[in-house]
């Protein structure tokens, strides 16, 4: 811990801290561009000059490039250093177009701030400015290269940190150009990060273009709802419209970056078909009327048919607070409670929550791990920022191995062993026992190599996905990590779950909860009334045909939701809730980390600023249009007749569950807090359905864009969502006489779809892999339900 003196103030910083950061610790912010905490110091912009007056380094130095040492005496106000900083700004501004009035960055532009801070105010250069022709970079990012100050942050983010290879730096001298090497959209699923890191308006958010000034945005720290990782985000809205999402900072989770699904997946908040009014039998009613109708109906049903005739269904989308109130309501009624309608996902999450304990690893720990084995986990599809964490581990010398039937793509080097889905658990057992002899020779060689790597590694982590592993696989994953752990060398685990609060629901779940049992009871009409909290049992059960058949038997369906789901359309009673960016609450991410968030905007129908040439609409009403949605926890509190605020509710949760200790005091912009205690595993183990044995078997999977419910409703992502396709190994394709690119008819138990055939040599044999694509004929292929029978045939000519 070196202690140094900066501007006559003493500061002690952790070893390895650079002097620029050390000064920041004293509140002295020296202008800088190329330095970024996540990207490191490269000394390119030459802006952060300080005078080193005494100590191991002397003279004018770039503070970002100098590690803080004892006895350093540094001046940031030295006239020579200040003169250099002013000159660097002058040089950077030589070619800048000064187009701030039409630049989206205006107001949150580091170049504006640093120009003022750097002391450059009068333009002396009168020569011609260099100009560039811009590129069309696709639906997410707008490029305006004339504004560029060549800090290299974009390329260091895109290439070095995110592993993209289609975008980079071209040219030399004062003609440096950052762009794509050829025509086309940015290919990296993390492309939006160059918007955040660009210190000026070279790369700006395309869907957000010309919508708002930064200072007009309502922003709040939030948590990304598009997978189970819980990345920090900062949604920003104006005129009742959620207009953009940028990355928040959580050093334990996402660091400084987020994926494009999280950044551009917010369209569900503004969705025109979003439920915004309480509806009773299709009729708009007041909240009071709706709530008393619900109370009455439930009381009546319980009175007539007993408490078992009512069931409450929570969801991985709903906050911990809402799920907890649902649990209390179920307690009060004495009725059936379920937090996830997808039986396998439910059981896998509960198994993970029950057994993870101190084997849990955060994304930060994954970035620092030296061996990462992915078993049935496809990070880009099931938790994109995990892929980026794996890349950082590889950059630091770590190794990644993938055991998966799918051709798992990662933005880093990784060894991939294609295994059939039913081989994943045996593979885990082999890793744990050190014996892979039961596998075919070629596979055994790879597994034995991994076993050797495991014995040599210092910080290994096993990563498994709930969809492919299921309950038994999650248990095997945890058991393998236990077996591989010693006190000196623990082996960590990360599980990928379905939703942002899958873990939280699992923690609250009663041991006897059983999604299939619930469906059976509905089918048998034992359960007559179902209340869904931000859940859609019609779409999210892996056997949608069975689910829909059963759900048709319901006498009463009440739904609390903010999405235009099938359940919302079928509901007898609809209670509109707020979208994540409008609500507050807490998610528990896939490592059991409590992550609170606050509302960025209030719900309401987005204002159309101008339409058809007319001026902003001037209609007046006492109520904001579309402002009826309420946070689900508040609705449930009303139903429970308790008037309670969020903090009080969190205190109650802490008291009821010691494992949530610290929840109420959690700061919004911190790193969250890992829960301090396990959930309860399912009381019974579900029978694993025998995989279909004849013919080709279909594996439904999540995919990066198009599978996840919320982001599938986002217009910017629609343009990058693939058309329906299936993956097949070339050997099978040859046997079937099919070739790459053919348009085929895929028949499954749930219908048929027209799909394009893609061949991949990196997948397991004997399988057809189909992504779930919402809004297409592949919508009803819900992953995680095991293998399906299917057939492929040539499309008949029209």
């Amino acid at each position, binding site marked *: 811990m070196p202690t140094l003196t900066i501007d006559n103030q003493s500061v002690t910083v952790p070893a390895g801290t650079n002097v620029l950061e050390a000064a920041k610790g004293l509140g002295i912010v020296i202008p800088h561009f190329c330095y970024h905490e996540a990207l490191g110091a490269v*000394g*390119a*912009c*030459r802006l952060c000059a300080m005078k080193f007056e005494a100590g191991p380094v002397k003279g004018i130095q770039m503070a970002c490039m100098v590690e803080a040492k004892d006895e350093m005496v540094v001046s940031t106000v030295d006239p020579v250093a200040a003169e250099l900083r002013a000159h660097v700004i002058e*040089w950077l501004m030589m*070619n800048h177009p000064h187009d701030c009035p039409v630049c989206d960055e205006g107001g949150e532009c580091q170049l504006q701030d640093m120009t003022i801070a750097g002391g450059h105010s009068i333009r002396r250069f009168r020569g011609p400015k260099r100009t560039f022709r811009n590129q069309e970079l696709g639906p997410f990012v707008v490029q305006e290269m004339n504004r560029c100050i060549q800090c290299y942050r974009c390329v260091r983010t895109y290439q070095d940190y995110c592993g993209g290879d289609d975008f980079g730096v071209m040219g*030399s*001298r004062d003609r440096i150009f950052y762009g794509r090497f050829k025509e086309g959209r940015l290919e990296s699923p993390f492309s939006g990060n160059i918007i955040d890191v660009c210190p000026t308006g070279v790369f700006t958010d395309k869907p957000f273009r010309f919508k708002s000034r930064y200072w007009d945005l309502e922003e709040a720290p939030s948590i990304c709802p598009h997978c189970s990782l819980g990345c920090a985000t900062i949604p920003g809205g104006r005129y009742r419209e959620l207009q953009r999402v940028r990355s928040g900072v959580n050093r334990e989770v996402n660091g400084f970056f987020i994926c494009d699904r999280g950044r551009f997946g917010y369209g569900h908040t503004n969705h025109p078909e979003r439920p915004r009014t309480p509806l009773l039998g299709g009729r708009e009613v007041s909240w009071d009327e709706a709530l008393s109708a619900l109370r009455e109906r439930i009381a009546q049903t319980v009175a007539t048919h007993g408490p078992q005739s009512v069931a409450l269904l929570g969801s991985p989308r709903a906050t911990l607070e809402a799920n907890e109130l649902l649990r209390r309501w179920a307690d009060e009624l004495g009725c059936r409670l379920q937090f996830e309608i997808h039986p396998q996902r439910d059981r896998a999450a509960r198994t993970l929550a029950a057994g993870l304990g101190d084997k849990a690893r955060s994304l930060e720990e994954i970035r620092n791990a030296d061996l990462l084995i992915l078993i049935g986990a496809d990070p880009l599809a099931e938790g994109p920022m995990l892929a980026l964490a794996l890349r950082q581990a590889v950059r630091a010398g770590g190794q990644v191995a993938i055991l998966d039937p799918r051709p798992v793509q990662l933005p880093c080097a990784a060894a991939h062993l294609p295994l059939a889905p039913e081989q994943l658990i045996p593979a885990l057992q082999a890793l744990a026992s050190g014996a892979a002899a039961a596998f075919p020779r070629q596979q055994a060689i790879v597994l034995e190599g991994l076993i050797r790597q495991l014995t040599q590694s210092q910080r290994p982590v096993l990563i498994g996905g709930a969809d492919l592993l299921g309950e038994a696989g999650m248990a095997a994953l945890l058991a393998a990590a236990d077996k591989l752990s010693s006190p000196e060398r623990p082996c960590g685990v990360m599980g990928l779950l379905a939703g942002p609060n899958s873990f939280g629901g699992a923690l609250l779940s009663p041991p006897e909860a059983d999604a299939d049992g619930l469906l059976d009871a509905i089918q048998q009409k034992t359960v007559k009334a179902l209340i869904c909290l931000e859940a859609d049992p019609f779409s999210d059960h892996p056997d949608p045909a069975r689910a829909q058949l059963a759900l048709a038997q319901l006498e009463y369906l009440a739904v609390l939701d903010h999405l235009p789901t099938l359940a919302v359309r079928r509901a007898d009673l609809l209670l509109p809730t707020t979208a994540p960016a409008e609500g507050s609450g807490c998610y528990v991410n896939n490592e059991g980390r409590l992550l609170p968030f606050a509302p960025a905007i209030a719900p309401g129908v987005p204002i159309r600023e101008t339409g058809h040439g007319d001026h902003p609409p001037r209609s007046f009403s006492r109520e904001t249009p579309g402002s009826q949605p309420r946070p689900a926890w508040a609705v449930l509190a009303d139903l429970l007749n308790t008037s309670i605020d969020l903090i009080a509710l969190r205190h109650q949760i802490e008291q009821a569950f010691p494992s949530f200790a610290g929840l109420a005091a959690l700061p919004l912009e911190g790193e969250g807090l890992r829960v301090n205690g396990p959930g309860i595993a399912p009381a019974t183990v579900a029978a694993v359905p025998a995989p279909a044995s004849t013919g080709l078997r279909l594996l439904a999977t999540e995919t990066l864009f198009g599978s996840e419910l919320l982001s599938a409703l986002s217009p910017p992502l629609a343009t990058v969502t693939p058309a329906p396709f299936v993956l097949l190994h070339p050997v099978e394709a040859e046997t079937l006489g099919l070739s790459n690119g053919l348009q085929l008819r895929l028949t499954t138990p749930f219908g048929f779809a027209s799909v394009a055939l893609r061949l991949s040599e990196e997948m397991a044999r004997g399988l057809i892999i189909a992504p779930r694509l919402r809004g297409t004929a592949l919508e009803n292929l819900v992953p995680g339900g095991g293998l399906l029978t299917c057939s492929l045939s040539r499309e008949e000519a029209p």
Partner: protein
Amino acid sequence: MSDAPQLLFKNRRLGETTFLDGYQKTGGYQGLRKAFKEMTPAEVRETVKVAGLRGRGGAGFSTGLKWSFFPADQPGEKYLVCNGDEMEPGTWKDRELLKADPHQLVEGMIISAYALQAPVAYIFIRYAYEECSRNLEQAIAEAKAAGFLGKNILGSDYSLELHVHRSAGRYILGEETALLNGLEGKRPNPRSKPPFPAQRGLFDKPTTVNNVETIANVPHILSGGAQWYKGLALTDGGAGTKLYGLSGHLEHTPCVELPVGIPLRTLVEQVGGGVRGGRKFKACLPGGASTPFLTADQLDVAMDFDPIAAAGSRLGTGCVTVFDDTTCMVAATLNLNRFFARESCGWCTPCRDGLPMVNWLLEKIERGEGTMDDIAMLKDQQRNISGRSFCALAEGAMGPVESLLRLFMDEIEDHVKLGRCPLRTR
């Protein structure tokens, strides 16, 4: 001058290249035999250090000292790289050497790589030096066939792979860390130091980078001995001979080998035959485009690193460019600065954007549109670029600019006062 000892140019004959037979007839590969038969790698390193050899690429750093930083005794991958990216304007000595006698470099590389215990070595050569590259490839093939290169050289347990790599052709590739990036197939931006190449160089392994002429001196040091080599210089602090290439407003512009420490005046007046057409000497760049100007009153300076530094410039590559009294020094400096601005890799701001700013100011002054404020601004630009850039490129570019401001202020001010270039007749 004809009696000056010839080491590097001993086999040089106009229009001819000496290959293995001719090279061996004049003592070629004797240094290598001596090194491999009689000396340990450490002894070779020590000999080069005692000989006082200083880098001939421009910086003049002690070769022996540089080698002493290299972990020669540490096993594993490490590299010797020869910097043959001779792109300094006015500098053409390495080309002459490789055109005349390529085996010297090959022998020097083998001895040096042996001294450093590097199993792989690269000669990184300027894109335009195709003839030199072919000469080297032929020499390498001959050396391999003769057992001087390859596996178990001269029966020792030391083996060496030697490769020729043609540069993609930018001035920045002469900067040693940019060269290493270029050699790795990356964008040739300089790397930050530390870590120095001796710790993390080519492919992140320990690497030493030496100039062509530096390495070519090594066989002569071994065969002739360190003390003999040191005694070749005319200055007390100097060592060996030096290749001097002349250019500019001289009667003759040859490239010659003369002792280190020879007076600049001898080069200009005797070797160069004096300023062309009997005109007056106005200034010269003593060692390439990035060295500050010297003027007529400094002609008696000895061509060695320390004396030239004391005179306010640098020996650099030892290739002298002379300007006569018809030269506008503003225009000459502008011409030089345009080169540096064009060759900037674009990594750091002072170089990428500062040099174009200097161009703009010099152009304005040269056009007669400059003001006294512009002169003041030129000074503040120079002051803030010198020593502030990421690598030495912009630092070098400021050599001529700094000396222009120091030595020719009257001439600059005349541009402003007259509203035109004073040396232009119309």
